[in-house]
């Protein structure tokens, strides 16, 4: 334990404690006592717990800010979790600027979504028990997520990491009556497990290497001090060739991040995760859990800064994911699917930033994305409620007349994500593109920038496309449904207003230097500056102001092109999309069918795996082999007895006596044989 410049604060344990207590309370009420609480009680307990967490997180932030910049680290040691010889893992919590931002985003957005869920689930869930079960899972998720972001070592982080995976599974399959939802939940869980395996291997390799150089530890700050000792180590890879050890560890960790944060090749679970209730999509699959991978990469930034190879993998995977997911989003008609692919794409952006060394840009975009994507998801949830559970934009259109308030807040989200100048998404995306542009240590960094810019055009296009198709033009809903369209309840609308406000102003938390000077925001007040002590600096290259202005102009034109194209195609002359669909039928089918990646995985991985499991492992080894030995021995005894041994049972006392005496004599002879 390094204790210089570290302060102890017992506040920290309260942050995850409240949601845990609420989850346990709900679990006991419905699981053991089988007496679900009335809805008002459930709401009070759940939302209260999350609001309390948020309050404590703010208090902790206040305490953190009261210390000088170089010692802004709060620690809360709970107990020794594992103590085995020289290896000690404490169950302890860490609150540094990075954790502070994450826990404020998690509890803040979490609290808003809890409030939103009141209205959403009240409309949906007829059963009091289901209502309480939903909030139980939601609170359990908050606890796991807070453990993830507050963990002081890799083991506590991994505990939260697995916990959020479990809650994601439980909540995607929340309406398990429909088998498809249960399937989607399993898919998410299994794909995540594949990533987790890589993460675990990374932890093992890192720990083994640290133990070899005399620092058997999993604690972040201790790893950071010892990482220099590993800088020159190499590992022989099974396919020949040598990798730097840190590159291997970084890539393994990134495999875990790929699973959790839905990057190529493990992104396939996230679009299907939309089977869950919409608040879950907003909280878990847009704002918080899926950003855990980005958080982890930033938490391990000192490792990635020392492993340029791993950083390049991160950046390029992120860029490809951003582009591919954005192209898929262009042709989706389900409103939630568009948002899901958009989330995958935006997470790709964050990894581009993290890979290029712009860790604070990644965290900044993580925060702004949490606001506007939660807003968009919750807005789409409001639309879905208004349309009585219709998610297909083919059956919407013209809704601006029926639900004007929802239309306006959704529009704010669309503008923010598309990069409308001076809104939050504009600044954070700008900073990511800038860090990609400047990252000379990454091979092909200008390509990364180009892909990012192209993705920005696509982002503006598909977001405005979905906006226009939902709210403008002729209403394509059936007439009897049309008369029932109504604005949702207040508990649904208020969180949307708050998130809309945040989406507008959050960008000012950390405008790029250029804009900071222009708007009169001192550099020392920015989020970037606040995060600096917790993150590795990476390789920072500065760019001339004139070049920066050029980049800004390009970003703005990307927004204009994307949005204009969408307006032209879906508002001005709506017959164009149909014509494109006919002209480029093959391309359209490929995009609309998500490049058949799911089908490819099914044929190449899932079906062979299921076939091998079924034919070899189940029927071959389990049924024939193991069961065969057990049942076979019993059958052999029975057959032997039926064929011969039973004739020894004559029923005649004296024959038994005879054999007994023969046996006794035989034993006597054996005992006397030597003497």
């Amino acid at each position, binding site marked *: 334990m390094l204790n210089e410049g570290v302060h102890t604060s017992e506040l920290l344990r309260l942050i995850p404690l409240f949601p845990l207590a609420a989850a346990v309370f709900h679990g006991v009420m419905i699981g053991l006592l089988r007496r679900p609480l009335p809805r008002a009680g459930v709401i009070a307990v759940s939302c209260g717990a999350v609001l309390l967490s948020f309050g404590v997180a703010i208090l902790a932030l206040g305490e953190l800010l009261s210390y000088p910049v170089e010692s802004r680290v709060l620690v809360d040691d709970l107990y020794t979790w594992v103590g085995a010889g020289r290896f000690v893992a404490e169950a302890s919590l860490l609150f540094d600027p990075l954790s502070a931002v994450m826990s404020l985003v998690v509890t803040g957005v979490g609290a808003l979504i809890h409030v939103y869920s009141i209205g959403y689930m009240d409309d949906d869930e007829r059963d009091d028990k289901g209502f309480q079960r939903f909030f139980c899972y939601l609170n359990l998720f908050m606890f796991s997520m807070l453990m993830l972001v507050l963990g002081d070592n890799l083991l506590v982080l991994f505990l939260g990491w697995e916990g959020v995976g479990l809650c994601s599974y439980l909540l995607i399959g929340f309406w398990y009556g429909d088998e498809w939802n249960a399937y989607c939940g399993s898919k998410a869980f299994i794909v995540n497990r594949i990533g987790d395996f890589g993460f675990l291997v990374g932890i093992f390799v890192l720990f083994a290497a640290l133990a070899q150089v005399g620092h058997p530890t999993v604690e972040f700050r201790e790893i950071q001090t010892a990482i220099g000792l590993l800088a020159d180590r190499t590992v022989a890879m099974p396919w020949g060739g040598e990798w730097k050890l840190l590159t291997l560890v970084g890539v393994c960790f990134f495999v875990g991040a790929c699973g959790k944060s839905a990057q190529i090749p493990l992104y396939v679970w996230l679009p299907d995760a939309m089977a869950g209730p919409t608040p879950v999509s907003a909280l878990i699959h847009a704002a918080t859990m899926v950003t855990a991978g980005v958080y982890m990469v930033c938490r391990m930034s000192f490792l990635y800064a020392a492993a340029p190879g791993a950083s390049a993998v991160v950046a390029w995977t992120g860029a490809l994911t951003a582009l591919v997911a954005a192209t898929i989003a262009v042709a989706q008609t389900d409103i939630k699917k568009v948002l899901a692919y958009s989330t995958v794409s935006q997470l790709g952006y964050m990894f581009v930033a993290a890979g290029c060394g712009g860790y604070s840009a990644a965290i900044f975009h993580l925060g702004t994305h949490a606001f506007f994507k939660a807003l968009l998801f919750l807005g789409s949830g409001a639309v879905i409620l208004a349309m009585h559970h219709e998610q297909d934009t083919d059956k919407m259109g013209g809704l601006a007349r029926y639900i004007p308030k929802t239309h306006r807040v959704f529009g704010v989200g669309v503008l923010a994500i598309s990069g409308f100048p001076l809104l939050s998404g504009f600044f954070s995306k700008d900073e990511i593109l800038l860090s990609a542009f400047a990252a000379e240590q990454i091979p092909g960094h200008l390509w990364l920038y180009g892909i990012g810019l192209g993705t920005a055009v696509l982002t503006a296009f598909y977001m405005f496309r979905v906006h226009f198709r939902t709210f403008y033009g002729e209403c394509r809903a059936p007439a009897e449904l049309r008369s029932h369209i109504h604005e949702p309840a207040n508990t649904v609308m208020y969180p949307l207003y708050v998130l809309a406000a945040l989406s507008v102003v959050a960008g000012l938390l950390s405008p790029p230097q250029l804009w900071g000077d222009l708007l009169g925001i001192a550099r020392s007040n920015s989020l970037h500056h606040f995060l600096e002590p917790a993150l590795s600096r990476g390789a920072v290259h500065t760019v001339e102001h004139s070049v920066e202005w050029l980049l800004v102009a390009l970003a703005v034109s990307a927004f204009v092109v994307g949005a204009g194209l969408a307006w032209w195609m879906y508002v001005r002359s709506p017959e164009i999309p149909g014509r494109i669909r006919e002209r480029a039928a093959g391309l359209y089918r490929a995009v609309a069918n998500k490049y058949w990646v799911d089908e490819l995985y099914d044929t190449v991985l899932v079906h062979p795996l299921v076939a091998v499991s079924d034919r070899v492992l189940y029927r071959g080894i389990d049924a024939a082999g193991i069961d065969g030995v057990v049942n076979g021995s019993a059958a052999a005894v029975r057959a032997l007895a039926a064929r011969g041994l039973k004739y020894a*049972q004559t*029923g005649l006392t004296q024959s038994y006596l*005879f054999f007994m005496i023969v046996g006794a004599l035989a034993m006597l002879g054996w005992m006397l044989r030597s003497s």
Partner: protein
Amino acid sequence: MDLVVDLSVVLFAIGVVGALVRRNVIVILMSVELMLNAVNLAFVAFSRMHGNNDGHVFVLIVITVAAAEVAVGLGIVISLFRNRDTVNVDDVSLLKW
């Protein structure tokens, strides 16, 4: 000394043969008693040879157990005779394949 042990062996052999070849339950019981007492005789003889009293103690225990065994055995025989009207062991062979 040898004579006594020889007598014991002869008595035991008679008991074994009697138990094996006779069909009358009461005779079989008597043969068992004969074997027990042959053993008792051997015990006493060896006890005297070794010059301690262990064998005597064993003999007393054997006599006690034999008395109990005879009581149970004769009880079974009486019950058998009442139920099946026979004392021939070959007639009592229900418990077979």
